[in-house]
């Protein structure tokens, strides 16, 4: 019993961090409606500023440095939190305020840009060497039975509970807090009451910066400090925020602490001899998400409530996109690109096509059905790993082995659809992210399924013809390129056929308003399940092609952050259009844009910062993605030339 208590107390350390971050995420989600993946990276300025001040007396700001001299812990803490507050406020004003009337997706993608920027900026200002931060809270050891526990864990838990109570009190008992909550439902009403929604939201972001900055400084001594330390903690923090339905500060606070306790107990129990071996790998990281998924699936509703309504401000879908001529033109372009290029340029062309297929899976499930899913990359990974396993353990080869792999991905996609029947919007995004984490831990990194020597994939062969991507020094053979092109065109035509069919109409009806769709006899659940399965099959196809193009697979290509990256590129390309998927392929890692940046732009240590800034600016300039802008431009040109537009907009409420 003492040991359980001791491990529970130990878990309060990481639990307090998760709780503190979750409080900030819930707070800002309440004002903007969007999930800020960059939140942890934003507020981590606080512990870095604090540490630098206490060690060198230098106040290192995002821009400029001031030599203050020897600084007390309290002064350093105040200044560290102040910097986090300023960064948070500036981020709101420059990024999220201009985007407040755009889609949740646009704001989510912008937050990924914020994450990249902040992480890179901190690394440039403070260096990348890990730091050990001095104690802030009393840290004398406390013996509980045979286990020694640092006392600061208890103080950390107390601090986060007090902070949570103060923030919750603000929203429930102050005029400004109540007005903020009202503004999140109806800005006009608040304006009529003489209050400024912008200023109220700005205050919310100040509070979020304060809360996160303070907790990260207090918790900094519990782990080494690097620019990536807290960025990775955004994932469990999101799970806690999800448990709180992005609404309840109290649940965020207590849920975070509980998460830390559960993970601590799991760390201990998973080392015991009675713990099942199959559940030993990855359980600590994956289990909290499993619990969250179960809880939300139970608490969710089959249909949205009255007034929960349509997906917010998604770009319209064109059912006439990528017609016959456009498809033929695109095919010719890729064919010519394959024929005239060679080496790594042709490799980039091939990767562009593969990633276009991956993006198509997001176009189907998010663009057409309005279900924000972060699972496609994980599903691609499932297919890739299954392909490797099938070829390793059986005599099956191309084309049967990839079909089996794609079917496996589709089956998992079907399972992923089950929570989607009861959860929607941002919450579904996090649940699918949970699914991706689970896949990563239980499948990709599971020693029972993934051999220690790695996941090798042999070249595809058909009727004795080697269709593999490489041979000797030839980095990208035309045979593989043509195979990928055929599959890309088939996928594009397939998706076009899908959206123009009556089934496509039901997808769009569900996207517009699930209640209305159900009322006219559309079986919402069955349609969603079918859409998830089709999306998963496309992702699986991309996964097997990635495997063939690399010759081996590692889990690092299919992580949560890889999934966020694909979502970002697909959004920028145009998540509601088929041609947008092609744009996304150009932007994806190892695609044509990556090739050009890698060969011609020598940004060195500034690369990530520039990439993050470019992402944020792109979203601000094109909140509906580039293909939407291009379509608008094409539409204007057509109007000017006195020809009718082909746009059958499916606008949202």
């Amino acid at each position, binding site marked *: 019993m003492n*040991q359980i208590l*001791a*491990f529970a107390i*130990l*878990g309060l350390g990481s639990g307090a961090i998760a709780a503190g971050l979750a409080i900030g995420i819930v707070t800002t989600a309440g004002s903007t409606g969007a999930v800020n993946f960059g939140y942890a990276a934003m507020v981590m300025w606080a512990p870095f500023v604090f540490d630098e001040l206490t060690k060198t007396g230098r106040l290192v700001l995002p821009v400029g440095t001031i030599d203050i001299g020897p600084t007390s812990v309290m002064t350093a803490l105040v200044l560290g939190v102040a910097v986090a507050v300023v960064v948070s406020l500036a981020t709101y004003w420059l990024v999220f305020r201009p985007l407040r009337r755009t889609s949740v997706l646009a704001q989510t993608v912008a937050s990924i840009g914020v994450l990249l920027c902040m992480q890179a900026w901190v*690394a440039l200002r403070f260096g*990348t*060497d*890990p730091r*050990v931060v001095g104690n802030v809270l009393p840290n004398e*050891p406390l013996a509980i039975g045979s*286990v*020694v*526990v*640092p006392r600061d*864990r208890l103080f950390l838990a107390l601090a986060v509970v007090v902070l949570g109570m103060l923030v919750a009190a603000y929203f429930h008992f102050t005029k400004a807090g109540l007005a903020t909550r009202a503004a999140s439902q109806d800005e006009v009403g608040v304006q009529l009451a003489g209050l400024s929604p912008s200023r109220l939201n700005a205050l919310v972001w100040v509070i979020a910066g304060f809360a996160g900055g303070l907790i990260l400084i207090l918790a900094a001594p*519990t*782990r*080494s400090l*690097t620019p*990536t*330390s807290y960025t*990775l*903690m955004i994932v469990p923090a999101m799970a806690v925020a999800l448990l709180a339905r992005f609404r309840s500060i109290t649940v965020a606070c207590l849920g975070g602490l509980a998460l*830390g306790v559960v*993970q*601590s107990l799991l*760390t*201990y129990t*998973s*080392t015991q001899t009675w713990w099942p071996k199959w559940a*030993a*790998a990855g359980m600590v*990281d994956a289990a909290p998400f499993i619990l969250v998924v179960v809880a939300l699936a139970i608490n969710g509703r089959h249909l949205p409530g009255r007034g929960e309504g349509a997906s917010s401000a998604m770009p319209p879908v064109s059912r006439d996109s990528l017609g016959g001529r456009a498809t033929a033109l695109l095919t010719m372009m890729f064919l010519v690109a394959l024929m005239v290029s060679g*080496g*790594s340029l042709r*490799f980039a062309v091939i990767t562009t096509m593969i990633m276009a297929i991956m993006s198509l899976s997001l176009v189907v499930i998010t663009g057409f059905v309005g279900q924000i899913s972060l699972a496609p990359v994980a599903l691609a990974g499932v297919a890739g790993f299954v392909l490797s396993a099938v070829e390793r353990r059986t005599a099956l080869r191309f084309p049967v082995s990839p079909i089996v792999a794609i079917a496996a991905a589709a089956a998992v996609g079907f399972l992923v659809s089950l929570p989607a029947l009861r959860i929607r919007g941002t919450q579904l995004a996090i649940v699918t992210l949970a699914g991706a984490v689970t896949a990563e831990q239980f499948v990709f990194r*599971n*020693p029972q399924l993934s051999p*220690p*020597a*790695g996941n*090798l994939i042999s070249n595809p062969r058909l009727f004795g013809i080697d269709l593999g991507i*490489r041979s*000797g*020094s030839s*980095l990208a053979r035309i045979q593989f390129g043509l195979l990928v092109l055929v599959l890309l065109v088939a996928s594009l035509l397939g998706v076009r056929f899908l959206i123009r069919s009556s089934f496509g109409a039901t997808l769009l009806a569900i996207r517009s308003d699930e209640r209305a769709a159900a009322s006219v006899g559309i079986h919402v659940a069955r349609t969603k399940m079918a859409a998830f399965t089709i999306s998963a099959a496309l992702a699986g196809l991309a996964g097997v092609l990635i495997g063939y193009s*690399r*010759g*081996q697979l*590692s889990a*690092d*290509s299919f992580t949560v952050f890889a999934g966020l990256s694909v979502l970002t590129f697909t959004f920028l390309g145009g998540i509601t259009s088929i041609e947008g998927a092609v744009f996304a392929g150009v932007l994806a890692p*190892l695609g044509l844009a*990556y*090739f050009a940046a890698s060969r011609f732009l020598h940004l*060195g*240590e500034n*690369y*990530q910062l520039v990439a993050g800034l470019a992402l944020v600016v792109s979203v601000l300039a094109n909140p509906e993605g580039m293909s939407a802008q291009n379509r608008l431009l094409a539409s204007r040109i057509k109007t000017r030339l006195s020809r009718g537009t082909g746009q059958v907009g499916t606008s949202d409420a």
Partner: protein
Amino acid sequence: MKTGAATGEPLKIGFSNLEGGAISLPEVRYGAEAAVKLINEKRNGVGGRPIELVPCAVDASPESSVDCANKFVEAGVQAVELGVDPSADAMLPILSDAGIPVFGHAAFGPQQRQDPNVVLFGVSAPAAGLGPLQYFAEQGAKSVVYFLADTPSSRDFTDSVLDPSAKSLGLKFKVIYYSATAADWSVLAATAMSENPDVIGSPSASEVDCLSMIPAVQTAGHKGPIFAAACSLFSTILGPAAVGVLTYSDLWSPTDPNTPADRQAEVAMYKDAMKAIDQSQFAEKDSFALGWFADTMNFARILTEDGGGDLSGSAILKTLKSTKNFEGFLGPVISCDGSAWKGETACGNQLLLFKTTESGVRNAVTDKFIVVSPQG
């Protein structure tokens, strides 16, 4: 050995290394560059041909490693030297297909340990895990707990090497796995302490993990030896907490006064070479630069002693793999023909253990390399 400047057609060597991102280790490249300059200007290159290093920065993603591999193939490099590249496994099929051999110091992924196109001059991963166990058993320890990152290869390593070897050495042994991205070291330390071990440590923890592991284990009440892999940053950052912590290396330390007299000339050569490229600060402390300086020197010497004639990829690989009983730069005798450790691409099965002193300098605890043999 011929001396003087090399003037022939350059021998291109690709060099991939983690640089420019949230984690950046340029000192790894500096070590290789210092060696290249020395080899080219003072040692007649490789068979008269100067080495031309073709660097490529990676960011730990498989995609960046693939991109570098493609660049190397197109640049026509004859071999690739791996710096610190956590996703280097992704490069291997590309380089293998192109007939470009790969060499480096240590494996950062499971495939590098087994790929026939790879030669690693450092100590093998099994020996790095087992060697300290041998030493602890000889010193009278009865119980050891290791921390390992939770990966398929770590679990296989435990099942196939560590567990049977520890049993054979008469040690009570436990491995505690940690999340490579979100480890809570106070919890891990308490879990380790529940086993009442004589020794706690990790053969493979990163610098970041070592900085958290050492204080956590001490706070949890452990009074015995702490083994901190090949970490070095902690000795300057943790102050008194670093005293007595054990680490391993497969090279003599340039800052250790216990380094044998007959190796001091190599120490001086290393320091002078780093000074020649204006990076002497890395030679005045334990840094990654030494490992890659040594690897590059070994590579050049092996090929030169072979005659330095045919320097095609296949010939380089054949020469490297036929290396036997070769005394490495500041290192032990190595053999790259597979005899160092069966099934591994590493050439070494010997290491040194160091104890951190109050001044932060590490002193070797033995006066010669510990030879590690498979147990059980």
